[in-house]
């Protein structure tokens, strides 16, 4: 049973579970949560909703991925949604779904053609585009106040063939490198490793001196998915080229990336990396078992809350320099879909348009995790990053100032296509890397096997 990406050991005491619409979430124990979740799974994939209308009042049903910071979801459900509902005389129901389950839940809804009106994914839901309304009008309505669509949103939600926006992106979560300053000072790298070569050589020295390995996420989890797609891209590897052609074995880059990660794990990593579940890298970093990892800043926020002494030592740096430059995929891209079978499409569209007005509150309540797609909505973002109220030192987060510059959309170098996103959501890339790191396949064979799978997926979507 997957669990939400909770933070803080054991971290699960902060999980929320939806018990009734428009009520405050209850805190539940891990055991209680698992029992309830198991029951829900056994009963079926669908949520049970109350009557759609009460005394004629409309309902807006929202499914959203469970945020890395549970406090954000609590705010979303208990403050943001009710306030909007009151303003529009609409009853809002919010269900939080663990990121690992969001794809499955969405598939179940489209199969049944019923469920929520609005489905919020932590990545571009390109595979679901035939079940989505065209979201262009939402972007257009927002443009009047906040300007034209930013590139990361455009390439995350636009289908070049249909000329439609299959989703609406309002925020995204950068994924910087987190490193323990004390550890890396032992490698004469107090400013962090900066590039992939030094991650390996410096990480080797840190492990040799302190016994603390480097802790990038390498398994089939959201963290591993983002980390390994980032490494592949930083080494110039591509799943699909700019034109959407399968390119994973087109050149040596994928093999180079595979060999690098294998060497990194051998020289500077730990066998435990190969077994981590969701947030395994986060828990390892928060318990001081690893010297670095790549993640959303929710990691550092959790440290600030639970272990200020450790948080003080954890520093951020922009992504590592690879042969393709300084780059890292977003840890999450908040992309919302209004289903074309939604009963309250107008309400869902209005909610999304109005969500942009709340970008500043989204940023604040996510404790800086969620960067606004529309930069004008948080015009003092840089000032905030330079003087963060929770950080010690307060300027720690300024490393994120140019995050938009180093963050490509999932799907890069092209758009987020159904093929690319199915590859992403089936964890093909982490599986490819793991097979090499574990010694099950050579780098060349793993790349070829992955290519075959990508081609199969591409064939499935050739008309999309």
């Amino acid at each position: 049973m997957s669990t939400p990406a909770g933070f803080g050991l054991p971290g699960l005491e902060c999980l929320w579970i939806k018990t009734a619409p428009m009520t405050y979430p209850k805190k539940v124990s891990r055991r209680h949560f698992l029992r309830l979740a198991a029951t829900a799974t056994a009963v079926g994939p669908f949520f049970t909703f109350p009557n759609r209308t009460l005394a004629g009042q409309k309902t807006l049903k929202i499914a959203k991925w469970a945020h890395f910071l549970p406090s954000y979801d609590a705010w979303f459900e208990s403050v943001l949604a009710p306030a909007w509902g009151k303003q529009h005389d609409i009853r809002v129901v919010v269900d939080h779904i663990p990121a690992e389950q969001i794809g499955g839940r969405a598939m179940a809804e489209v199969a049944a053609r019923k469920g929520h009106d609005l489905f919020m994914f932590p990545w571009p839901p390109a595979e679901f585009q035939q079940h989505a309304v065209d979201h262009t009008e939402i972007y257009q309505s927002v443009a009047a106040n906040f300007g034209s669509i930013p590139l990361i949103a455009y390439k995350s939600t636009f289908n070049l063939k249909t000329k439609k926006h299959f989703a609406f992106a309002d925020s995204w979560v950068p994924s910087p490198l987190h490193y323990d300053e004390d550890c890396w000072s032992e490698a004469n790298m107090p400013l962090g490793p900066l590039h992939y070569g030094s991650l390996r050589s410096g990480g080797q020295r840190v492990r040799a001196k302190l016994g603390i390995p480097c802790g990038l996420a390498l398994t089939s989890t959201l963290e591993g998915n983002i980390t390994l797609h980032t490494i592949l891209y930083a080494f110039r590897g591509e799943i699909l080229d700019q034109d959407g052609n399968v390119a994973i074995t087109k050149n040596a880059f994928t093999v180079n990336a595979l060999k690098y990660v294998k060497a990194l794990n051998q020289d500077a990593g730990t066998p435990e990396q190969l077994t981590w579940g969701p947030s395994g890298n986060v828990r390892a970093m928060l318990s001081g078992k690893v010297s670095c990892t790549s993640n959303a800043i929710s990691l550092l926020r959790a440290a600030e809350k639970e272990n200020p002494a450790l948080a003080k030592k954890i520093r951020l740096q922009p992504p590592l320099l690879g042969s393709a430059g300084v780059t890292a995929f977003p840890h999450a891209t908040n992309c919302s879909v209004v289903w074309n079978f939604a009963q309250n499409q107008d309400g869902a569209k209005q909610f999304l348009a109005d969500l942009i007005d709340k970008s500043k509150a989204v940023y604040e309540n996510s404790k800086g995790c969620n960067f606004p797609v529309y930069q004008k909505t948080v015009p003092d973002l840089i000032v905030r990053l330079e003087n963060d109220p929770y950080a010690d030192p307060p300027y720690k987060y300024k490393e994120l100032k140019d995050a938009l510059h180093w963050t490509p959309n999932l799907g890069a170098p092209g758009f987020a296509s159904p093929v690319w996103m199915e590859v992403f959501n089936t964890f093909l890339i982490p599986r490819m890397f793991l097979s090499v790191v574990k010694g099950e396949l050579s780098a060349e064979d793993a790349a070829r096997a992955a290519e075959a799978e990508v081609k199969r997926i591409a064939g499935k979507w050739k008309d999309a």
Partner: protein
Amino acid sequence: MLGALLQLTCGAPALPQTTPVVNPPPCDFNDNFYNANGINVTNLDLQVAGRFGNFRQTGPPASSFNGGTNNWVADSTCSVTDPTRRNFRILATTGGYVDDGTGSPTDFISILAFLTNQNDFTGVANARNIQMVDIVGNFEAYAALKQRLPNGTFARNPCGTMASPDAPTTPCFPVTSVATPSLRQDWRFATNRNAIDGSDGNLVNGTGKGVTIVNNSPFGYFCDDLLGMWVITYFWFTVDPANPNPNPTQQCGSILAALGQKNGFNLDGTPIIKTADELNNQLEANHCGAEGQEDVGGADGGAVWLVCPAIPDPRQGGIAPDAFPDVVFKPDGTPLDPAIINNFRCLQTTGQFCN
């Protein structure tokens, strides 16, 4: 010239100039300016950094081949012309290829100093409150060290931490010096990176369905990198030109031959590489070449970064009459790529690039 335009629009220091000089020749920065941009001046003044004005007045790159004797001279006009500079004017003018895809031999820079580990950065942020160590990763200077060892052996990997898995780690070629005599070919510089006008291919704006796309606000070499610093990306051949296809599936022989026919051959007998496409999509994509950066903790013993500002516009005075070209020469004293030195001479004598 784009570079000059950018310098004027966004890179110009806010300090007042008493005497307007349109296009002055290069001088070293003063200590205050290094400090303001996060560089440890104490370390910069150590011999290993080789700061012009303190060290390397004679010797490489000055040589009998290029006619240079002093790499720099005292010049009291430097700080008057530009208050961020100190009074040492640079004569050694390093030429190279611009990284805009054309490989044109039009970039000219001044290698003021070498930085060998992170202790050379103070952590002080610049005017945009960004640390230099973060900015500099966006700007790469591509160094091509000699791979042929004194005994004639061709080493397919560098010594130290950068070795590629595509080749054996021994024998290896040294990476402790990027002085011109250690180079097999001339440099390539990414002065075009992240140009705010989109001239690097970066999408600044465009159109979607009924909307305009606006990109982010990227770094610009002439806007943000006020010291003109670079991270050095070393690149090398992972195959011996005498045996370019060590396994039957490799196509390196034909790739090297084609590149050599197009660009000529360097001092090692491998082709000259002028563009990113040649390095990335022809060599590296086919297991024929590799690239990397030195250990930022200093474990490799050589330069990780350069303080090496490009001359924004080398025309109309940017190349002083007493400057000399720092380029790679063949053993017989002729330049490896005459196009670079020809441009230098044209600029120096006419103020314009050669036709």
